[in-house]
């Protein structure tokens, strides 16, 4: 319903291959991400079923759809987001989250979620419609709905435990240091929390695992966050080639200007005029937007757009 088969297969196999070829460390963050892959597969497969017209004739407007969309929304949005919070919490706050509480929260949430939402597939197949608050006795939906209720309480306790973990760890979490996960990407080379400017120079990245280069020995090149281009003549940044990210051009950044704001206002009022059928307003805003665009693009010497 929500995605194409190719995307599911490509994404799931990419994740499995990442775990397979790596050396997984079973932290809370990993559990939440691995759990998400499983829930994604379940939610994706039930998506195929609702996308097949003959099956959907049976399934539409039943609890099967409720099960599917919660596997999609909670399984592939809430679980990885919580995994991401576990992963980057130390970078943001300087303190690690509690692992023991984290694992409890994961198993409560994971088991609670599946106990709560998986039976909804069966309820849907048994004909229970969605968007009802009660149903007649003796339809045979009672026992499964009791399991659903128990599961959802379990899930809620897990979520609560996660929030407790966040507040406790903010105050008493273990001090993280720069790179508590021994991770390879650039953000782990700064202090936790990072300085407001992140990096003093634009880092030069020589490989896909900049912090593991010494150990992987894949090539001679080394990344650096300490040395880089000065770019100190006004507001400048580096433009690089699209495939190899080699330095290609020094780009001048525009200064403060009203023209983008005027363009945005012109376009916003243009569409308001279109909604109200006020054609004169459309004309005025179109002309105003054109002039704002031309003013925005006007060649400027300070941006090296004209002459040397």
């Amino acid at each position, binding site marked *: 319903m929500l995605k194409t088969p190719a995307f599911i297969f490509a994404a799931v196999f990419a994740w499995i291959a990442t775990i397979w070829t790596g050396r997984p460390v079973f932290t809370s963050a990993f559990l939440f991400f691995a759990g998400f892959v499983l829930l994604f597969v379940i939610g994706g497969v039930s998506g195929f079923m609702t996308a097949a017209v003959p099956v959907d004739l049976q399934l539409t407007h039943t609890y099967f759809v409720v099960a599917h969309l919660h596997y999609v929304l909670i399984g592939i949005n809430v679980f990885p987001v919580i995994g991401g919070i576990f992963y980057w919490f130390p970078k943001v706050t300087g303190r690690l989250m509690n692992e023991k509480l984290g694992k409890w929260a994961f198993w409560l949430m994971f088991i609670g979620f599946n106990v709560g939402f998986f039976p909804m597939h069966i309820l849907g197949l048994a004909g229970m419609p969605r968007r009802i608050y009660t149903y007649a006795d003796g339809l045979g939906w009672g026992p499964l709905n009791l399991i659903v209720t128990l599961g959802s309480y379990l899930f809620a306790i897990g979520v609560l435990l996660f929030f407790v973990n966040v507040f406790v760890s903010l105050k008493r979490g273990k001090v993280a240091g720069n790179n508590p996960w021994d991770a390879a990407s650039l953000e782990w080379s700064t202090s936790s929390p990072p300085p407001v400017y992140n990096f003093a120079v634009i880092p030069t990245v020589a490989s896909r695992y900049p912090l593991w280069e010494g150990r992987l020995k894949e090539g001679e090149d080394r990344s650096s966050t300490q*040395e880089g281009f000065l770019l100190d003549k006004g507001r400048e940044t580096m433009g690089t080639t699209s495939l190899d990210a080699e*330095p*290609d051009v*020094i780009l*001048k950044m525009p200064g403060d200007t009203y023209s983008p704001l005027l363009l945005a206002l012109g376009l916003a009022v243009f569409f308001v005029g279109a909604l109200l059928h006020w054609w004169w307003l459309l004309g005025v805003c179109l002309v105003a937007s054109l002039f704002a665009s031309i003013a925005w693009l006007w060649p400027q010497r300070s*941006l090296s*757009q004209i002459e*040397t």
Partner: protein
Amino acid sequence: MVEVGVSRSTLPVGSKAHHASGWWGMLTVIATEATLFAYLLFSYFYIASHAIGEWPPHGLPKLNLAIPGTIVLVAGSFTMWWGERGINRNRPIQLLIGLGASLLLGIAFIVLEAREWAAEPFHLTSGVYSSLYFTITGFHLAHVLVGLLVLSVLFIWTTLDYFDANRHSAVSIGVLYWHFITIVWLAVFFTFYIAPRLG
């Protein structure tokens, strides 16, 4: 790492030729607009392949205005190419003449197209062919209008002496869009005027 920083110490600064951000921006605009026209032309061929009875329903489209229109637009691309070549060799006057000629040829195209629209026996709502015809040629016409606006602004900037052989990426970006409009027209022309004559 340091080797990268030192050995390439003479990087161009700012909007220089094809290093300019606007150049890449225009390429992405062309990619999205080309996709739009690909969809539109696909819908023409799709509906043509499913048509019952005669296609095109009003007989073969006349070429008496379409061929001059095509010649005018292709000529406008050539004059623009010639003008850009001029600024590459530091001749702003040649660029100005090229821009002026392309502007006039673009306006001529719009006049020819308007006369063809007026002469058509059908209206926008007459049927599926007419709505395809007016939608696709209309979208192309809108792009020609934007192109003319771009060329006019470039004309003003050239008279203000903003461009020389070293710095004229605004010109290259505008010219790229102008060539794109010509190429789209060739696809539209083939679809509406040539393809029905081949079957």
